[in-house]
């Protein structure tokens, strides 16, 4: 007679196998419940490492506080934001976007840089997942006939048109008009594109000044003494720097040392409004003028965003990277609320019909044209005052008064 109730190792194995079979659906069911969208799942593709890591991290600040700001503004929405690192490389941006789509992201946001954004856009289009571009200025992004893309950032021609218009406003408001200008330009892809745009658009823009000389310098330049000396020798009334952060610091340092005090307007490039520039240049960073899209200091939503940014990132100045990334998420959230669905077509339809009157960046309502481009974004004139970039034009958004031309390096107003 066999003892069927005997507990053997073989029996234990059978029990374990049976338990595994019965239990297997449990985690599957759990996973299934998780993937059922309680919240909108957003894949945020940013350069979190590599050459643009610092900017990617600034962009992410806008995402890190987005849900808190929505809650504060009583918006009935919560986003499930997953960040994917593009490593500042378009090919990585592409593979990371594919990962995001495979992970079930229903909307994509990104990717700061035009090259990376184009890579992301191609995947978004191929997979049929809506993409909200936070920052990227290359025109092809919205000129290539993509159906799943909207962009809440000005194109390069929009930036330059705005820069020329605002320069005219500066001259009109101050009553001072330069007759000649010299351009100091970083010799990289971005600098060359900006310079090419300026040269192409200047004749049609009807500007009152003539560009006497364009001086380019190596992107890895360690000092700009010769370049500044050369620019000074032109005796131009105005300097137009096309720069980034490090070279902006070298440039101003040399201008002070060489006692060159031209009028100066940055026509839409980074560097001079950035916190590191303001901090390290001290009084010599004051009164610097940059033309940029910027946060509207008079918008209530900007104030709420700034409050949460200050609380979460004390000592870090909020800037356009965080502002535009937050707005991209706001657009996604708004579309989800309108569509009441996470289906790509429904979301895309809602995105196309977006109309957000109150938002954080200077400009009219967020709306997209047939190509998916927001054409209502406006540039601002920023002037560094009391160690902060402040909007001085357009008048309706101004929080301080324009000082132009800038005071000399030894002027007592610089403290």
């Amino acid at each position, binding site marked *: 007679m066999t003892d069927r109730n005997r507990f053997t190792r073989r029996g234990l194995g059978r029990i374990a196998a049976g338990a595994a079979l019965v239990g297997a659906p449990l985690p599957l069911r759990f996973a299934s419940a998780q993937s059922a969208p309680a919240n909108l799942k957003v894949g945020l593709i940013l350069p979190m490492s590599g*050459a643009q890591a610092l900017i990617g991290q600034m962009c992410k600040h806008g995402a890190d506080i987005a849900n808190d700001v929505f809650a504060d503004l009583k918006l009935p929405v919560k986003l499930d934001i997953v960040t994917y690192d593009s490593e500042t490389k378009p090919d990585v941006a592409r593979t990371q976007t594919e990962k995001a789509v495979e992970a079930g992201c229903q909307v994509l946001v990104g990717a700061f840089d035009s090259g990376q954004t184009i890579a992301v856009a191609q995947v978004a289009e191929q997979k049929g997942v809506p993409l909200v571009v936070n920052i990227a200025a290359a025109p092809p992004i919205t000129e290539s006939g993509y159906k799943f893309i909207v962009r809440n950032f000005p194109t390069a021609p929009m930036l330059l048109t705005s820069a020329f218009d605002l320069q005219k406003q500066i001259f009109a408001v101050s009553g001072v008009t330069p007759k000649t200008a010299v351009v100091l330009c970083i010799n990289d892809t971005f600098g060359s594109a900006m310079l090419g745009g300026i040269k192409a658009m200047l004749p049609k823009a009807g500007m009152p000044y003539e560009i006497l000389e364009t001086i380019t*310098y190596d992107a890895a330049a360690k*000092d700009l003494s*010769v*370049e500044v*000396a*050369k620019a000074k020798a032109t005796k131009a009334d105005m300097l137009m720097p096309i720069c980034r952060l490090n070279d902006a610091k070298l440039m101003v340092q040399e201008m002070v*040392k*060489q006692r060159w005090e031209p009028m100066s307007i940055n026509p839409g490039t980074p560097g001079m409004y950035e916190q590191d520039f303001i901090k390290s240049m001290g009084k010599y960073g004051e009164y610097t003028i940059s033309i940029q899209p910027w946060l509207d200091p008079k918008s209530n939503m900007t104030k709420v965003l700034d409050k949460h940014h200050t609380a979460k990132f004390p000592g870090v100045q909020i800037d356009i990277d965080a502002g535009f990334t937050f707005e991209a998420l706001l657009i996604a959230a708004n579309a989800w609320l309108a569509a009441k669905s996470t289906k790509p077509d429904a979301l895309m339809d809602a995105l196309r019909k977006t109309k957000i009157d109150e938002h954080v960046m200077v400009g009219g309502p967020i709306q997209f044209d047939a190509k998916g481009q927001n054409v209502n974004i406006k540039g601002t004139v920023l002037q560094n005052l009391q160690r902060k970039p402040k909007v001085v034009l357009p008048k309706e958004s101004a929080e301080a008064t324009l000082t132009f031309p800038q005071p000399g390096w030894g002027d007592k107003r610089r403290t």
Partner: protein
Amino acid sequence: MNDFLLALAQAVAKGLLTGMVYGLMALGLSVIFGVMRVVNFAHGEMMVVGMYLAWAAFDALQVPPMLSLPAIAAVFFGAGYLLQRGLIQPFINRPEHQQFLLLLAVATLIANACLAIAGPDSLTVQLESRFDSYEMGPLVLDTVRVQAAFVALLITALLWLFFTRTRTGKAIRAAADNHMGALVVGLDVRRLYAVTFGIGAACVGAAGALMIMLVPVTPSLAPDYTLLAFVIVIVGGLGSMTGALLGGLLIGVSEAVAGLLGDPALKSMFSFGLLIVVLLLRPQGLLGRKETR
């Protein structure tokens, strides 16, 4: 003086001042090669470490680079001495490609350590005098650059005195001139080699402390400086102290004047053009001695 001549004089003055710091940097490379016949491919990386140490001293203790320079040079001397005794000495008589690979490995380790510790962002010392300049007639000279050049010149002079007036300096020169002869007369050549490497390292450490006053530091600067040091010593003459200084001045001035006369973005082309001309016309460098086979 018309505007162009003034700008030219300004560029030459700036080039001479920068060239003195370049010269000090290249001096380290030249001394090591001249004595040991080892080419230090980690030279730029060592320079960048010197810059970081000067930055750290300023950031943590508010000690300006001029004051931290002696301590940095001393640390570099010690580190160079130990590096030579522990790592480089066994490679002295090995084929050149093995020396090259060893020092390339050292360079990679240093560069990655800098990246891991300090990160990729540029760091600079915020000296009070960084915006100041001296007026000499119509010329405006950058205060920090003048100070750095003066100190570089002083260190070069002290080094020259060391090699010509002290027993150890003379012994090092003797070992460089005739290795076998030095062994025969009982000189401790191994120790002299270690001292030489220490001196070369101290030079580059001091040059780093001076360079941080002129240029923000990032780990990615290192290969540029290695290349620059090579260009300078090849132009001046590998192994020649005076040649290193002359090469530094020539490269400094050529970069500055090239930037003025042509497109500043292409000014490095002048340095490399000069290098090619020297290699074609005088392969041993302007003040170098012809190798005999």
